[in-house]
């Protein structure tokens, strides 16, 4: 057996090694399901891995050399942030680390002087301000239920968090659509063959750099789904079912909605965060403080 104090290190390493595999697989299934929804056969499940492997085989043209550094930092901090999450660290710290890594992607896009990646960068920032409040409220909600910000404590609390935070959960699913870059919120860049302002933030990345961005996305996938897990952590089976269902719903939304303008994205995500998230937390707060059990 692994000693207790080494567990976080082990889970973090497991995440760093396995998350890309899992994330790539999820991505492959995503593409397959999407194709089926559209009446197509779709690519092989392993297609995302082929894509990334191919990108590594290509040349790496850059607009400025600095792009390489930004992309590398993006990938590294994405992996670190996720590893912190799976090692059971403070949720807020994890969120800030994720923001940091996203800023690197944005900077990478800014550093090329192309109008397309510039607009993509601005929109990526808009997406960050659209989802960030809800993500923070999610962490706060988990604290209110479990009395801890530490992922390890939240995951092992044994409390069915979802019953306390249904509004927060729906709000989280809403911003998940933004984070997964799914339609209707794939403003800054999008997956599959979708195109928006060419390819938004990723426009001026090619070859290996693009591959690194893709891998970072995979890391992020696993982290995002891990947060869903926390809502249901008291029962792993339900958690897995919910994750599968939630992801399926995201794919469905992706295929049935047209892309919206950023105004609508910002408004709707803030209103949802405000209405569902805050009201949910407010009720909890009231119950905890005013009606002590």
């Amino acid at each position: 057996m692994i000693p207790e104090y080494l567990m976080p290190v082990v889970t973090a390493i497991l995440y760093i090694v396995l998350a890309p595999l899992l994330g790539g697989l999820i991505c492959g299934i995503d593409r397959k399901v999407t194709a089926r929804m559209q009446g197509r056969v779709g690519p092989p499940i392993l297609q995302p891995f082929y894509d990334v492997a191919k990108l590594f085989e290509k040349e790496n043209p850059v607009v400025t050399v600095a792009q390489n550094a930004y992309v590398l930092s993006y990938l590294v901090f994405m992996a670190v942030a996720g590893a912190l999450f799976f090692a059971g660290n403070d949720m807020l710290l994890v969120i800030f680390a994720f923001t940091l890594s996203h800023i690197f992607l944005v900077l990478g896009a800014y550093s090329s002087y192309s109008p397309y990646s510039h607009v993509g960068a601005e929109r990526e920032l808009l997406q960050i301000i659209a989802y960030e409040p809800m993500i923070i409220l999610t962490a706060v909600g988990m604290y209110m239920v479990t009395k801890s910000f530490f992922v390890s404590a939240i995951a092992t609390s044994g409390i069915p968090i979802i019953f306390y935070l249904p509004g927060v959960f729906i709000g989280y699913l809403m911003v998940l659509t933004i984070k997964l870059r799914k339609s209707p919120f794939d403003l800054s860049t999008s997956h599959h063959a979708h195109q928006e302002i060419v390819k938004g933030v990723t426009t001026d990345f090619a070859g290996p750099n693009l591959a690194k961005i893709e891998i970072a996305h995979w890391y992020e996938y696993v982290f995002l789904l891990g947060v869903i897990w926390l809502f249901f952590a008291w029962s792993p089976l339900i958690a897995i079912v919910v994750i599968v269902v939630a992801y399926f719903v995201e794919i469905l939304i992706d295929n049935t909605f047209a892309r919206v303008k950023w105004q609508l994205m910002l408004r709707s995500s803030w209103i949802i965060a405000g209405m569902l998230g805050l009201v949910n937390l407010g009720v909890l707060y009231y119950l905890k403080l005013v009606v002590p059990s």
Partner: protein
Amino acid sequence: MIDLSFLIAFPALVALLMLLISGQKLRSALVIATAAVLGLASIALLFLNWDKNTVLVNFPFEPATEVMLVIEVLLAIWILYLGVKHRKWLTFFLMFVQAGLLVWFETSYSIHIERGFNLFIDQFSLIMALIIGIIGSLICVYALGYMETYHHHHKEIKDRRKLFFFTLFVFLSAMFGLVFSNNLLWVFFFWEITTICSFVLIGYAKTEEATNNAFLALSMNLLGGVAFIAAIVYLTNLDPNLLHLDTLLASGQAVALVPAVLISFAGITKAALMPFSSWLVGAMVAPTPVSALLHSSTMVKAGVYIIVKFAPILTGTTEGLIIAMVGGITFLLASFMAISQNNAKKVLAYSTIANLGLIVACAGVGTYNLMWVAILLIVFHAIAKSLLFLCVGTVEHRIGSRNIEDMGGLIVRMPKIAIMMFIGMAGMFLAPFGMVISKWAAIEAFITAPFGLIFIAILAFGGSATVFFWSKWMGKIISVMRDQKVVEGTVAKEKWASLYILTGLVVVVCFAFPLISSLLIEPYVLNIYGHTTRLAQANLTIMIMMLCLLMITPLSMLFYRKKPAAIAPPYMAGRPTPTHMSFAGSLGVTREVVLSNYYLPRFFGEERLFMAGTALCWGLLLIAGTLLAGVIL
């Protein structure tokens, strides 16, 4: 303790010398020497006092209070005269009320006031002294080079550098006085001096705009001054002994609440929170070192300093909550407004207002862990923001614009400054740097505080706005056109020195903050509340690790620089673009590519938000006023 009075008196003496000296060389020497002395003296103070709680001291000069009164009256007459001369009747009226109250008060009460200890030092004022002594003197050194260039660029403005440096050092002396004074009358005196210094420095250029903004700042601060003196009068009526901060703070909520709220109101005006935020934005017409010194790192901090001092009194009261709400709303709206600005100094101003708002929100709620956060915020903000101001000042002189849109590709045009700006901005909003540590701690502290959820929501939304406006600015700096040239040129040595030291401080403070926290902030909080807080050890380790990991970016940059790379032009939809990024438009017209940031005025427009914020905050203040009137009657 000779040191405290030395720190107050020495800059004042130097200020007088400044009036006599006119040669640039001599002035430089004197300013640098003074800066060194002040910096070292405040560090010496740290070593002498870090392990002590509150130490009360007497000022070695007996009739100091009388001298202060005389100075105050003279200044009042001068301001009244200026008010008439410029037909600023509001200023005139407020000054009149204030001076009237003061004179009436002094003549009718002062005989009864017992003389206690007039000066004190504790960990918090030690921190403030370090900020003033180190950052303040660095900015003074920077100002040497800046003012030289300033007058070179603005030939139309009369060279009044003697007055400028005189005021700067008087200000430093007043700031030291403010944070060391135990006697509220003294605090008030120094408070007024800083107000008037700010007035003089904002109006330095003597243009119409500068004069108007100077009077705006003056009248708003005088309004706060009236509240301050009202608190003094109220206290004297109660018990003249309460005029000493230590006895006042120890007297408990029942007694101290009214003066605490009145003085907090004064603090709100000084810290330019929402209904009064316009003066700080207007103050940006002043030369940049002034903005850095008075309007971001020290003087406005005096406003929050006094509110944080009264936090134990405010905590748990409705009035305290209202003050916190004013701070919270200010944080939220000022962060939003910063998005819509393209004037670099205005962005910095709004960000300053926002952070002061956050500090006041912490202090108003006033639980022990929030006080810890508030002090932490003061430290981090002072360093990073003054660095940013100085960088913007330098950039402005080189490229002749303070518009962010003109700062494109700065990383190539002025690499060193751009990197410093980068570090400063990262210090303002990115993990694992200072401000994020404090925001994080603030969320964790608010969650257990009464009504904390409101503030958490404010932090969540306002914090994301912060990410937006800093990142797009960062993006502007690094979006490089391929044929841009280095224009960094010859920036004066003194400027470099200040900039380097401040940049170093931003980073060092991130590493050293556990030390600062455990040596100074925690004992202070412990002393007041009986318990204290800190960041979990595990989190600290991770922060430090992240800080080290962040070195990847520059290191890999060096690595990639060395490797031969295939350089491709940016994607322009197939349009062939030469290096200066122009392309053939229709009808053979050559068009330049111009990229501009998003400012989203329809969402975050200054006017609408300002109106909303002013209305809300006035409303809140009126409620607080009514409550207070209820308590008094």
